[in-house]
């Protein structure tokens, strides 16, 4: 069905910072969730800001629904729901006032749907937003992002700071959202367990560079970590090694094909891995 979002060689640098977003390329197919993972300061928010045009890019292309979005392309923004980490809305407002503002901004604003989310999420309509807990403000932001019937949700650390029960509730909402085949989610997070639960694809970013993009099932079921001793490590075929990390007497080696590694290196322990471990190996490990 194609891609709802496509980034090609997206680059961005700041005059007063050494940080550079370097040639980021990935795509998000319709009907799927892409987990965008990286440590704090890796470049997730900068990438999202470039996608949403809140900052200008230096070079590269960002296509949303097949076209580049400029300031005047309000029709594209009608189809996007956004949630940022933290306070998305002025604390002096109530959810009711937020709803009235949103109704004036979005042509598809669905007041009954928004109210349904408020009820489902146990959010009081007349309470000031600054009196909400962190979890409540995030739920409110998610309700607001969903209530204008978007096709693409862009969530920047939307689950950070929430307790596991609340995160699970919210992840269920995301899974329900992508049941529609034209709906997609770009979910930026450093909580890899969330991404393991819901993502179809995962893109790893580190120091402004995309270091790996793969289907989550491949990462979890195909990728593997070899637990090697020093001599076993040196005997490995260098082409198989994506990253490695020395830990005391053991060297953990990330490989893209665990089954092949088991066949090839019979004397080495080959473990299934997790997104968390892959991220650690890619970020803190070394390359050959």
């Amino acid at each position: 069905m194609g891609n709802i979002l496509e980034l090609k060689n997206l680059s961005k640098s700041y005059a007063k910072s050494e940080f550079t977003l370097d040639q980021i390329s990935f795509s998000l197919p319709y009907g799927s969730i892409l987990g965008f993972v990286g440590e704090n300061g890796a470049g997730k928010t900068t990438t999202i800001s470039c996608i949403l045009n809140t900052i200008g890019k230096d070079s590269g292309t960002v296509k949303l629904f097949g076209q580049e979005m400029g300031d005047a392309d309000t029709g594209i923004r009608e189809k996007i729901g956004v949630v940022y980490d933290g306070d998305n809305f002025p604390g002096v407002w109530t959810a009711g006032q937020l709803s009235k503002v949103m109704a004036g901004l979005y042509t598809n604003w669905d007041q009954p749907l928004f109210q349904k989310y408020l009820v489902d999420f146990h959010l009081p309509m007349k309470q000031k937003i600054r009196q909400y807990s962190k979890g409540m403000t995030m739920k409110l932001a998610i309700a607001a992002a969903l209530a204008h019937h978007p096709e693409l949700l862009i969530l920047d650390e939307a689950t950070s700071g929430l307790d596991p029960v609340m995160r699970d509730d919210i992840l269920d909402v995301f899974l329900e959202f992508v049941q529609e085949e034209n709906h997609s989610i770009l979910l930026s997070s450093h909580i890899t367990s969330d991404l393991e639960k819901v993502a179809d694809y995962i893109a790893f970013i580190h120091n402004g560079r995309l270091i790996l993009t793969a289907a989550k099932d491949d990462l979890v079921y195909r990728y593997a970590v070899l637990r090697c001793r020093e001599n076993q490590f040196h005997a490995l075929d260098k082409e198989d090694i994506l990253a490695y990390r020395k830990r005391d007497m053991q060297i953990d080696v990330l490989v893209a094909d665990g089954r092949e590694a088991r066949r090839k290196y019979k004397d080495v322990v080959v473990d299934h891995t997790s997104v968390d471990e892959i991220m650690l190996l890619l970020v803190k490990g070394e390359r050959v």
Partner: protein
Amino acid sequence: MRGLLRNNFYTALPNVKVFTGIAVLLGAFVVAMDNAVPSLIIGYALLVIIGFSLISIASVRKESAAKWGKYKLTTPVKRADIALSFFVSQLLWLFVGIGFAGFGIAMSIGLHGYPFDRSTDVFMLLVVGTGISLFMGAIFFPLYFLGGEERSEVMMVVSLLGGIGMMMGLSSLINRVYSGNMTSRQIILSGIFITACSAAAFAASFPVTAGVFRKKEY
């Protein structure tokens, strides 16, 4: 635009409620007092006209306290419309201030008689309040987006003083042109001139603000 104006209204509302309460109490006091010396009514009129405008522009910085300023850019509105909404909102609150001032003056005149020397003085009082408010807005909005939200308090003071300074400058100019006692016609012409200058500055400030805001990164 409707959503943006609602946004500005709800953001200003908490301060407006407090200021309206003060304006009502102060207005009641001013109206109750004898207006033989009109300084109270002059002070009240300028306070409410400039005060409502000041509250309108002060509320802009509340958006930067949350991520709403950035969030708003992801909604289906153009940056130029966001900038325009700030100008329109300030204009609407200015009318509210003029309404309060006009009502207070009318009540005072109704109860205690006409306190001023000339029939044009009420008109000039409204002109001065309106002029300062418009110049203030014209200076504040581009500076706010240029200087950053964290300097908004300084920008507000600078724009208020700038508005007063512009008014004093225009008054000096008019006094030079019409030396000696001015006729009512000359005073009205001067008032129209001041209003036209402040309105022109306010209107010219919008494209400048929109241009600055277009390049602003969040």
